[in-house]
């Protein structure tokens, strides 16, 4: 075995034979989070940019991370030169042109971008969108993988939200916007086509979930798929007819719109989406769970789903942290 060259951004270091990549990085004073040195804490998560890393360096990682060539530096003994990146690699990689703007409800905009080049993403991932002056926000991709050059987003106008106000009011058809590489681990995986799926989202948390559902149905997912979309009132719900039509077309897809205040019409449930889901689905052993929306909802629901039998490794969550005001 010989020394292997490791490229991390601008910096290049040599990893000695029988030296873990983590130790090599620490020896070179690279700033990298780490703790247990034995693959348990997963703090030293990195990503390989030249394809699959050594398989033993992915031990214990979630499938989604493995597929994106993430690995643990402490378990990695490089067998060849590697180009690596920190876990959040946020270089802007492409641009898109606004090709459609459509109101989904009073506060949510469906924004469609045509990308300059195809993007390899998974339904449910998010990208950072960046305005010319550098103002940047994360938005979930709301479509499935069929459209590699087109991305759509549900942009909810937030009180005091600079980026959301700008997209609602000032962004025009034909305008250009920078788009980062896709990120996030809350996405559809086709490895368990028979397992039931539970998706719970609040507000524009529907966006990634709709992408995941569309992708699952497109890939012929056989297990039951339950969607609970929650909002405070009817004005906050959207895509109700589209989701109902999807449920009519696919016997294994079950749609439950929920409102937490006010008197619901016939097809809508009264209560919080997570409470209604758990009252209807008592045992989640073997289920795969997707949660998107308000951070408190995601955190509580994750815990409830785990206590109801879902394995932690089968719970995928995307909490929408916002830069301004409050989100409900």
């Amino acid at each position, binding site marked *: 075995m010989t020394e292997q060259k490791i490229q991390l951004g601008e910096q290049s270091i040599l990893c000695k034979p029988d030296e873990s990549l983590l130790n090599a990085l620490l020896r070179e004073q690279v700033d990298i989070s780490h703790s247990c040195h034995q693959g348990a804490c997963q703090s030293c998560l990195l990503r390989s940019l030249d394809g699959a890393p050594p398989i033993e360096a992915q031990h214990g990682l979630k499938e989604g991370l493995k597929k994106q060539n993430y690995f643990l530096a402490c378990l990695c003994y490089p067998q060849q030169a590697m180009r690596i990146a920190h876990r959040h690699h946020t270089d802007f990689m492409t641009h898109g042109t606004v090709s459609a703007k459509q109101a989904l409800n009073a506060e949510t905009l469906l924004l469609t971008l045509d990308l300059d080049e195809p993007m390899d993403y998974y339904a449910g991932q998010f990208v950072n969108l960046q305005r010319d002056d550098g103002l940047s926000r994360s938005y979930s991709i709301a479509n499935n993988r069929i459209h590699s050059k087109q991305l759509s987003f549900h942009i909810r106008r937030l009180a005091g939200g600079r980026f959301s106000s700008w997209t609602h009011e000032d962004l025009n058809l034909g305008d250009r916007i920078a788009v980062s590489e896709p990120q996030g681990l809350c996405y559809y995986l086709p490895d368990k086509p028979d397992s039931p799926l539970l998706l719970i989202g609040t507000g524009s948390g529907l966006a990634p979930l709709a992408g995941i559902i569309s992708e699952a149905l497109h890939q012929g997912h056989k297990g039951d798929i339950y969607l609970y979309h929650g909002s405070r009132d009817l004005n906050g719900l959207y895509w109700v007819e589209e989701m109902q039509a999807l449920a009519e077309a696919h016997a294994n897809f079950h749609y439950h719109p929920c409102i937490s205040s006010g008197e619901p019409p016939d097809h809508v449930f009264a209560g919080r989406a997570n409470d209604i889901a758990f009252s209807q689905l008592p045992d989640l052993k073997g289920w795969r769970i997707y949660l998107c929306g308000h951070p408190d909802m995601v955190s509580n629901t994750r815990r409830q789903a785990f206590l109801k039998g879902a394995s*932690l490794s089968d719970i995928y969550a995307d909490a929408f942290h916002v830069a301004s005001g409050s989100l409900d």
Partner: protein
Amino acid sequence: MSESSDKTLFEQLGGEAAVDAAVDIFYRRVLSDYRINRFFDNTDMDQQAAKQKAFLTMAFGGPANYSGTDMRTAHAKFVKMGLDDSHFDAVVEHLAGTLQELNVPDALIEQVAAIAETTRNDVLGR
């Protein structure tokens, strides 16, 4: 000499695969226990589960990469919150219960409990 006595405790329990099988069950048990779940109320459940995994690996006689001082530092804030012997006993109870659920023989469960017991004074900051 019997075959089992040639193997370490960690190997007899099934090594890392056994830890993986135990961690969800163990974590679900402590989170469901009103006596102790306030100490486990971390919103980052993946991080919490990784810590539990490191603890189980150690208790199963596997490779442990943390010292008594690490245990003290990590639990100091819980001692301030009132962590005492009764809580430690409850965790050991769930450790044994987890292994019973996985049909581990009693003799091995006793050995695991004995290893966990060696951390008591560090965890409780004594």
